[in-house]
């Protein structure tokens, strides 16, 4: 049913103002302020119509039977379907679609006739009315519901109607919830009859017949037909149990519908129903009668006694509509603790449907093994999906380890429905996909019967807008195809290749391309060839060709070895009867040529002619595709061919310049760009034949408005400039720098920037130069939106012109100075940013006076309050200091630095970065201009910067310590840093250790190591670890110099390596590693041997970082002690009776072996004693003597 009829239907309602009033009233109660964001998180809500439609389709398809595994031995599944069934089913589906279309067509006709009738006679016959309302007379009800929910809610009806509709939906859910919730009170004035009286007249009611919730029912049935109960017989809403409703007021009509959120009340123990017992206590035994329910009243399923933590809310066994409704009413205050699962991060109402079985406490002793297994899987899945990271991690490990034990069936039966849930969010999907991935790996070929079901769920990921989702999807499908094998994959996906739904074909094609990349193109080629030539349906050919396209897009240059085969596969499609197939073929060829560039032109020989004829025959979309293909093939050609073909195609391109089709425009631009880039096309040709038309068609204001067009035009123009020259292009557009439209000015500026950056400014003559600078200054001053384009453009052009800007500098600098004092912070910021870019050029031009003037003005501006602007000002000051030098800097460094000290306290990242860069530079080049006391002050401030989030800031701060220590001498700085090891924050401590090491490196290790060793004696754990870390960095930085200090640190390392604390031993091992590598070959073997004896026992550690450090230390020992000694250590445990020991020793042996295979030969033990009759283990070659 289409929307116009619904409009008609909606005209049977109360006056609009009444409705609005109710709407407003309803809005006041229970609005969830987070509802909107929650929706946004849901993948389905966010996707495009196409994706949503696909998801619906997936939900339908997900319910088909499990497919048989034809390769499995002796499996005659009764409930599994084979390839033949799949094909039959698919044919049925197609037939169904045809019939449905025919019906729709017929209805449309009838409706038209009906309209005519209506015009003739004002009162249409009743059936007709019902039909028009979309009532139950319409035959395919399920289909209708599908149509309804395929229409995205936003697009349905605009404005108030939509909003109203949603609210009713909600209300209904609540009501249903209430119904199933309440059984205690079901009589009295709330009876059917009373309500019937209160209900509005029949005519009005008909609108409510269509309870929106029923749509939901139908949807849910589709999702779970096995579980679905038949939809309840149609009743008016007013017939249903109306518990908890306020007394019907005189307002009548629609008034009663607005009820308090009853469910919320029932959750509250002060507001729930009284139980029979309680009533017995309260009421006198006589004088009251329990009224029998009126005839025709249907009791909603009685609630069982529940011991769930949900409190009075019930979960039904099957995932019926009622359960969903209850769950929906549950709201955000859902439980986060489930028996046997523990604490969860969150629990959505929808989860209750899937995990109902484990929400209750059940007696596990009575369950069968299967049931127990099922519950175990559910618990693990719930932990993975909703748990906190540690919980999730262990659960994921468990489910992976036990995957084969659980079996494919039970696992996927639980996982796949979860993935098809409407309200699925990114994180949940990611985790579930991860489960599938891990499980797949374990299950291997057991997965075969579920391949199709998994594909149905995973395929939509391939067209997801999120890159990572696409990658995940590819990963899964590739693993799946490796596990199931090519034959099985083909037989599984074959039926979908000519599916009626384009969405299914699209995703199938993508999935196939993933299979091709996983199992190799050659193995898939015969199949592809057959599909692309399919005579049965054009859809199959279309999909086959699309597979080739997707392969090319995904695999890139890896298609080259199979290029000819792939091109031949699709070539005949260019002359297909179906327009769509021809278009797709051209697109596939374009993709292949793009992937193959710049090789493989010979493979395209066969298709050149048809393509050529094609661009003359086609119009519109077909032509666009053909042009695209030509555009990608031309760059592969030899120069002379390329120039010939370019000339031929240009005629058509120029004709299509006028096209109003956006897609065509983009393709034309792309093709022009590609043609211009080819070698054979001459500059003269471009100047005379392409440029005039090109500028007329594309350099218009309209093109600047769309971001993608903007980009394309700029790219193409830059490409043309490569051939035509800077002055040709810049000359044409320079006047537009003063255009009225800002986006257009930006497009001009962007193009000039890129052209000048690529080709330089030497081509620009004096007149053009004048115009250019004038235009740029104008455009810079007139800009209203802040972005980088104007700034970059200014900087690039001025830098390219170099000394030629000298005569304009006074003008530019006065503009800058004026703008530095502007009222708006953004303008000041831009001026400062521009100064940063201009500094080098001003120096080049020898205008030092201007620089010092700028420097002074900027210095005065350091009191700036907007952090972004302040950051830019400091950066500009830094740039000036950089080009002028510390000695000539104006203001003098000794004034500038004290001014910077308080600014270092600014928390803004940009300010921090700019100031630390400036200070670091001063410390590096001009430390002597500043008194030592000031530097110490700065040292203390710098410690705070070690906490910065940005790595660049921390690195700059650490380096500054080095510079300062160099000029001041290490003692004081070192003291500051060592004291900082006592602070709480780990990051700050780590940075201090690095800084200590840098100080040691710049001032010589002998200045620092004694202090560090002394500090190590502190009883504080953090300090000691810090000292060890600092030493580790020191020895890493100083390398061979460490030979002088080995003996001094041995005793400390002895202590650290025998410490109880794991981290101590780990860090000490790292020190040993750096030491051993540093002193290799320098005659420190005795100390190394000693350290080796201390490190060795740690090889049994299991904590990953510790064992890593220990293994590294042992490997380093191989370098400094030689493999022979290491081998003799290793031999002790290679054949130890305990496996754990053997494993560790073999790991060390293998590392040793790979590092020094050859040099171990002389050290292998003599094993001749082991020889027996069969084998001799003597190494005779080594026993020879001369």
């Amino acid at each position: 049913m289409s929307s116009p009829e619904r409009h008609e239907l909606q005209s049977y309602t109360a006056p609009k103002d009444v409705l609005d009033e109710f709407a407003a009233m309803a809005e006041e109660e229970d609005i969830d302020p987070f509802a909107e964001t929650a929706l946004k998180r849901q993948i389905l809500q966010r996707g495009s119509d196409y994706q949503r439609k696909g998801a619906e389709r997936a939900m339908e398809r997900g319910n088909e039977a499990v497919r048989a595994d034809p390769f499995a031995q002796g499996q005659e599944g009764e409930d599994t379907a084979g390839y033949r069934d799949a094909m039959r089913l698919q044919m049925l589906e197609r037939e169904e679609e045809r019939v449905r279309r025919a019906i729709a067509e017929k209805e449309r006709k009838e409706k038209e006739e009906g309209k005519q009738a209506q015009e003739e006679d004002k009162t249409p016959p009743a059936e007709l009315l019902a039909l028009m309302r979309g009532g139950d007379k319409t035959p395919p009800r399920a289909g209708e519901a599908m149509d309804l929910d395929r229409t995205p809610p936003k697009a349905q009806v605009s404005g108030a109607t939509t909003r109203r509709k949603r609210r009713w939906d909600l209300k209904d859910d609540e009501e249903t919830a209430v119904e199933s919730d309440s059984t205690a009170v079901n009589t009295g004035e709330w009876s059917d009859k009373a309500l019937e009286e209160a209900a509005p007249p029949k005519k009005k009611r008909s609108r409510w017949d269509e309870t929106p919730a029923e749509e939901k029912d139908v949807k849910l049935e589709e999702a779970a037909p096995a579980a679905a109960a038949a939809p309840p017989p149609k009743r008016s809403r007013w017939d249903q149990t109306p518990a908890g409703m306020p007394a019907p007021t005189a307002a009548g009509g629609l008034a009663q519908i607005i009820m308090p959120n009853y469910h919320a009340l029932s959750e509250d123990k002060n507001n729930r129903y009284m139980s029979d017992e309680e009533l017995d206590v309260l009421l006198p035994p006589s004088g009251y009668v329990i009224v029998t329910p009126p005839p025709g009243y249907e009791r909603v399923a009685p609630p069982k006694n529940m011991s769930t933590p949900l409190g009075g809310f019930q979960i039904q066994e099957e995932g019926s509509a009622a359960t969903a409704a209850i769950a929906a009413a549950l709201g955000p205050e859902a439980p986060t603790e489930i028996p046997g699962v523990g604490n969860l991060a969150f629990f959505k109402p929808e989860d209750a449907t899937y995990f109902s079985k484990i929400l209750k406490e059940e007696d596990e002793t009575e369950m069968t093994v299967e049931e127990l297994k099922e519950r175990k899987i559910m618990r693990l899945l719930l932990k993975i999906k909703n748990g906190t990271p540690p919980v999730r991690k262990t659960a994921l490990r468990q489910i992976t380890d036990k995957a084969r034990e659980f079996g494919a069936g039970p696992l996927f039966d639980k996982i796949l429905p979860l993935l098809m849930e409407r309200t699925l969010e990114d994180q949940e999907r990611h985790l579930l996909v991860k489960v599938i991935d891990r499980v797949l790996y374990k299950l291997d070929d057991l997965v075969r019967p579920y391949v199709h079901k998994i594909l149905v769920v995973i395929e939509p990921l391939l067209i997801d807008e999120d890159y990572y989702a696409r990658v995940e999807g590819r990963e899964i499908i590739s693993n799946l195809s490796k596990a199931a094998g090519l034959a099985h994959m083909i037989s599984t996906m074959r039926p979908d290749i000519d599916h009626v739904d384009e969405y299914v074909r699209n995703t199938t094609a993508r999935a196939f391309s993933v299979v091709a990349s996983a199992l190799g193109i050659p193995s898939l080629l015969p199949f592809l060839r057959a599909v692309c030539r399919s005579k049965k349906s054009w859809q199959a050919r279309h999909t086959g060709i699309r597979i080739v396209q997707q392969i090319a897009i995904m695999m890139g240059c890896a298609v080259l070895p199979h290029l000819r085969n792939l091109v031949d596969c699709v070539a005949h499609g260019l002359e297909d009867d179906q327009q769509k197939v021809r278009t797709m073929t051209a697109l596939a060829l374009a993709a292949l040529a793009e992937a193959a560039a710049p090789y493989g032109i010979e493979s395209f020989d066969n298709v050149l002619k048809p393509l050529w004829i094609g661009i003359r025959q086609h119009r519109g979309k077909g032509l666009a595709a053909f042009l695209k293909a030509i555009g990608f093939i031309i760059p592969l050609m030899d120069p002379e061919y390329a120039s010939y073909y370019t000339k031929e195609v240009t005629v058509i391109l120029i004709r299509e310049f006028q096209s109003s089709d956006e897609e065509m425009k983009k393709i034309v631009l792309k093709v022009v760009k590609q043609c211009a880039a080819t070698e054979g096309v001459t500059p003269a040709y471009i100047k005379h034949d392409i440029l005039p038309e090109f500028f007329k068609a594309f350099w218009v204001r309209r093109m600047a408005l769309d971001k993608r067009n903007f980009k394309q035009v700029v790219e193409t123009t830059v490409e043309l400039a490569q051939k035509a020259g800077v002055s040709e292009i810049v000359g044409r557009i320079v006047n537009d720098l003063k255009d009225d439209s800002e986006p257009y000015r930006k497009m001009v500026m962007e193009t000039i920037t890129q052209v000048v950056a690529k080709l330089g400014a030497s081509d620009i003559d004096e007149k053009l130069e004048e115009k250019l600078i004038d235009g740029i200054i104008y455009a810079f001053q007139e800009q209203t939106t802040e972005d980088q384009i104007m700034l970059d453009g200014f900087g690039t052009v001025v830098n390219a012109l170099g000394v030629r800007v000298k005569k304009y500098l006074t003008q530019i600098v006065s503009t800058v100075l004026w703008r530095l004092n502007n009222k708006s912070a953004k303008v000041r910021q831009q001026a400062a940013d521009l100064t940063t870019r201009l500094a080098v050029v001003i120096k080049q031009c020898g205008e030092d006076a201007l620089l010092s003037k700028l420097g002074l003005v900027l210095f005065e501006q350091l009191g700036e309050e907007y952090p972004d602007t302040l950051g830019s000002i400091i950066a500009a000051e830094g740039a000036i200091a950089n080009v002028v030098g510390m000695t000539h800097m104006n203001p003098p460094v000794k004034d500038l630095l004290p001014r910077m000290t308080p600014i270092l306290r600014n928390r803004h990242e940009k300010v921090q970065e700019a100031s630390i860069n400036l200070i670091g530079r001063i410390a590096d080049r001009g430390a002597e201009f500043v008194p030592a006391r000031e530097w110490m002050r700065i040292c203390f401030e710098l410690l705070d910067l070690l906490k910065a989030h940005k790595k660049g800031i921390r690195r700059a701060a650490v380096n500054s310590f080095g510079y300062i220590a160099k000029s001041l001498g290490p003692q004081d700085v070192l003291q500051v840093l060592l004291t900082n090891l006592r602070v709480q924050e780990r990051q700050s401590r780590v940075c201090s250790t690095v800084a200590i090491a840098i100080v040691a490196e710049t001032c010589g290790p002998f200045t620092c190591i004694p202090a560090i060793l002394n500090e190590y004696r502190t009883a504080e754990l953090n300090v000691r670890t810090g000292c060890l870390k600092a030493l580790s960095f020191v020895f890493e930085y100083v390398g061979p110099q460490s030979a002088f200090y080995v003996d001094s640190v041995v005793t400390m390392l002895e202590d650290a390596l025998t410490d109880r604390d794991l981290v101590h031993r780990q860090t000490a091992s790292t020190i040993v590693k750096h030491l051993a590598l540093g002193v290799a070959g320098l005659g420190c073997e005795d100390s190394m041997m000693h350290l080796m004896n201390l490190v060795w026992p740690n090889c049994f550690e299991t904590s990953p970082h510790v064992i890593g450090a220990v293994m590294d230390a042992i490997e380093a020992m191989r370098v400094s002690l030689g493999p022979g000694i290491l081998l003799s250590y290793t031999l002790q445990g290679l054949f130890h009776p305990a496996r754990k020991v053997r494993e560790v020793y073999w790991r060390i042996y293998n590392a040793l072996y790979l590092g020094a295979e050859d040099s171990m030969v002389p050290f292998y033990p003599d094993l001749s004693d082991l020889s027996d009759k069969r084998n001799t283990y003597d190494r005779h070659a080594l026993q020879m003597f001369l």
Partner: protein
Amino acid sequence: MSSELRYTANTQLEHLHARYTGTGHADITKYDWITHQHRDTYASIVGHAPLLSYLALADGEATGRVKFEMTEKMLQPCGPPPKKEED
């Protein structure tokens, strides 16, 4: 491999090791291990020309012959593998 290490970087180390011939593992037999040693020995001798000429001199054979014989011996340097115990 112990289960604690299964999910850490050391797994990769283990896999990496297993890709090279001559590396061992906790369940290797003495025959396999010693065979690798012998092959390494021969390879080392063949690879180091001075060592090779030393052996040729000691054996009184041409270096080419010694080299050839060593290469031949690398096939089964310690004789045929021991019979598998019936289980």
